[in-house]
């Protein structure tokens, strides 16, 4: 007699039902769409305007379907689903050129999942950039530069306080990420006392009358950690400004941020917005009696301008910025500051009405050094506005005298999106065009189909009835893999598809082990039913052992790998787990279904 417990049957049927249900949405892939919303404050889009926009979209002669219906009295957003990604881009570009600015036009992926499936949170697998097309960036915080800029501003701060306390120092410099002070012998105690009680960084006094201030390891880690998490927020804001669906901005490792922008093709444009490590500095013009050592010299519209080194506020205190036009029709940027920024601005400007204040645009650039092949980064600082302070400024003010409306809107965008807390470099960049993405899907599916059919044919040829059983298990295995990928909302990549294909080849291994064991036991003159039982029981441990090792390798791959390799590791591990379920439990269940009532089975079709 073949035995099979009831609870196992229940589990199998349960898993199969769940698996099929959650794999189903993959038959309804989302369509590329263009989404149109009104600027947040303006509310819903009225049906008339929606009709007009739809009319406008038909002018492109691109076929699309929209979500407009007769009954609604207004739309949160309008969706135009196009047939492919090229059309989607064309449609977006056309609408952008022809619609008023209060409309926000974004690329989107509109789900096509039937309502009853989305009600139970079932959704199709996410496609990776290599299948969907898009751009990815990996950016790294420049720790060296971050530390030196922080130390510079820290030094400026201490020096100002020391002056106020009338403690003299003879020299101060920043060498190797540490500030070194030196002073006359008679002032050492005073300086030592002051620094001891007022420094929140690591501080020590050296024998040769040098005082050293530096970050300790924890402090450095915190600094970088803070900078990366700040930048993460900023980058998310900037990415949102780009108006694309499902962007991914995540931290990677200690000092990196990975940005994925599906559907984007123009890297240059995306990089301009995301990567600009632009910042603003607001500084006062130097007075005639200012010490030269406390000023910097700039060129501005052909004249030399001296500015105080001291920065009133930087761009990260900017809460909002928008483009406007002044009385004479010139572009301007209206700026609002946060509380702290407002206070500082007020303190610095109230006694300086009539003096000039400059806005300096600080942009980080990279060049190859002349002397060696090393890459070095430097700050390109230029004055973008030099205006007389008309009255004490506070939280709200404006920058006028910008070159063009374009310059104004770009500046406002960057200001709004926030300044990066630390400069970042692009260390990796990749673009996959939509046509390559489509090709990748095609070759992935084709190789899956070919690989699958070859294996299925071989199994039937070699194991007959048992081959068919194993094939059902393999097919179910693919269903389960896609269900689990969908449930985990894991991303499917081309190597991921390769992982699934590989799993098919290896998944039959468990069945091969079982079946060859059964054959062997038959040769040992065991009765067919006993041979089946023995085959399953004895092959079981071997299968678990063999699969566990592959699973361990997959986990190692996942931890050391990035994007594509992780995609492979995910499908491989999911595939191993599901194949153990299907190859051991499901096939045994099927064998039981076929042979359970056969008390005197003489031969097996194996």
């Amino acid at each position: 007699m073949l035995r099979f417990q009831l609870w196992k049957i229940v589990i199998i049927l349960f898993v199969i039902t769940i698996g099929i249900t959650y794999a189903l949405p993959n038959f309804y892939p989302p369509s590329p769409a263009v989404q149109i919303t009104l600027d947040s404050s303006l509310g819903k889009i009225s049906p008339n305007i929606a009709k007009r926009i739809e009319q406008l979209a038909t002018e492109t002669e691109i076929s699309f379907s929209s979500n407009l219906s007769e009954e609604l009295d207004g739309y949160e957003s309008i969706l135009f689903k196009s047939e492919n990604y090229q059309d989607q881009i064309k449609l977006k570009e056309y609408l952008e050129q022809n619609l008023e600015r209060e409309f926000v036009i974004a690329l989107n992926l509109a789900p096509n999942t039937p309502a009853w499936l989305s009600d139970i949170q079932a959704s199709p697998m996410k496609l990776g950039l290599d299948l969907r097309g898009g751009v990815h960036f990996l950016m790294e915080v420049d720790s060296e530069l971050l530390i030196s800029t922080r130390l510079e501003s820290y030094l400026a701060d201490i020096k100002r306080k020391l002056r106020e306390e009338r403690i003299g120092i003879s020299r101060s410099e920043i060498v190797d990420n540490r500030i070194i002070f030196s002073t006359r012998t008679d002032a050492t105690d005073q300086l030592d006392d002051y620094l001891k009680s007022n420094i929140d960084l690591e501080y020590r006094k050296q024998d040769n009358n040098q005082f050293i201030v530096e970050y300790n390891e924890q402090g450095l880690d915190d600094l970088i950690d803070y900078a990366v998490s700040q930048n993460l927020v900023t980058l998310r804001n900037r990415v949102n400004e780009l108006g694309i669906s499902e962007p991914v901005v995540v931290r990677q490792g200690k000092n990196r941020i990975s940005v994925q922008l599906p559907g984007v093709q123009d890297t240059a444009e995306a990089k301009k917005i995301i990567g600009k490590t632009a910042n603003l500095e607001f500084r006062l013009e130097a007075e005639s009696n200012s010490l030269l050592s406390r000023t910097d010299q700039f060129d501005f519209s052909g004249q030399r301008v001296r500015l105080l080194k001291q920065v009133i506020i930087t761009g990260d205190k900017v809460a909002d910025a928008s483009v406007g036009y002044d009385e004479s029709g010139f572009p301007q940027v209206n700026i609002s500051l946060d509380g702290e920024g407002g206070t500082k601005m007020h303190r610095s400007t109230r006694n300086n009405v009539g003096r000039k204040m400059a806005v300096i645009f600080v942009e980080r650039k990279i060049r190859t050094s002349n002397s060696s092949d090393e890459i070095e980064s430097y700050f390109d600082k230029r004055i973008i506005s030099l205006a007389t302070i008309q009255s004490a400024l506070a939280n709200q003010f404006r920058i006028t005298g910008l070159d063009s409306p374009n310059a104004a809107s770009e500046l406002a965008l960057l200001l709004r999106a926030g300044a990066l807390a630390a400069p970042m470099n692009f260390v990796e960049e990749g673009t996959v065009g939509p046509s390559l993405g489509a090709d990748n899907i095609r070759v992935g599916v084709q190789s899956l189909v070919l690989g699958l059919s070859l294996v299925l044919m071989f199994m039937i040829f070699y194991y007959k009835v048992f081959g068919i059983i194993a094939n059902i298990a393999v097919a179910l295995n693919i269903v389960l893999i896609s269900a689990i990928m969908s449930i985990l909302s894991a991303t499917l990549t081309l190597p991921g598809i390769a992982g699934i294909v590989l799993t098919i080849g290896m998944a039959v291994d468990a069945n091969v082990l079982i079946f060859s064991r059964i054959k062997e036991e038959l040769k040992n003159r065991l009765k067919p039913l006993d041979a089946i039982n023995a085959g399953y029981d004895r092959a079981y441990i071997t299968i678990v052992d063999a699969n566990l090792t592959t699973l361990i390798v997959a986990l190692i791959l996942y931890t050391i790998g990035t994007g594509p390799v992780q995609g492979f590791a995910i499908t491989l591990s999911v595939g191993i787990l599901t194949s153990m379920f299907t190859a051991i439990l499901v096939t045994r269940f099927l064998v039981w279904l076929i042979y359970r009532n056969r008390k005197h089975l003489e031969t097996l079709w194996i």
Partner: protein
Amino acid sequence: MGPRKIASWLSIALVVLSIFSLTFKGLNAGLDFTGGTLIEIKMSQSANLEEIREVLGSKLEDDFQVSYFGSEQDVLIKIPGGSENNLSDEIVSALKNSFEFDLRRKDFIGPQIGEELRDQGGLGILAAMLVMMVYIMFRFQFKFAIGALLALIHDVLIVLGIFSIFYIGFNLTVLAAVLAVIGYSLNDTIVVSDRIRENYRRKRKSDNVDVINRSLNQMLGRTLITSLTTLLVLFALLILGGDFIQNFAIALICGVIVGTYSSIYVLCNNLILMNLNFEDLAIKKSETYDDGMP
């Protein structure tokens, strides 16, 4: 098991050849490991590489490569190093001014990333081997672990050697394949080891070469069939998977073939050399697993 000696010499020769090639010729490391810029474009008509070189020459030093990729419309541009991350954008816009094409792919990998990936890759292979060894030591026995480890080193070296000798492009995906080979090869090794253990426990009096031989013969059918089904799907990937997957498939195909061979010859040779005997495999009281024997 007859041609054991021949197999030993063949293995040693292949491993030495691989080490030799890896040392002197090295791997054809892809962009992932070297850093640099890669641009793949599809021209609307047959591309003239000379014209493209001319356009690029105005932007770049001499060290770039332009080649066809698949058809005469597909062009691949490789620029090593690439310290400036805006370079690729500038090149694409320069090309856009002169030609009509569809941008298929554009990658930039910074030099530091390449270096890290190299380190991580090497580390990954070592970690995988070490974990496997510990696993086998725990599940089987020390001699099996040594045997399996030698088989793994053998497999990985030969696969890497093949990539070096034929100078096939080695990128991150291929590295993933090499790691998968470790998993696969071990899979085979474990299945064989499992049977050796079972046979030892069943018939304690036999000669060890005899037991190992018999275990191998019992598992040979299964080993070959599994390798065959895996090779079937891998050939499907090789033929249809496109350029991106091609080298990945080659690595796995080599790995499966070498891995199958090594689980038959390398592991067992080592076990015989180390004089595996039934005391090594006697069930100790502390062991709790059940091998299914009545």
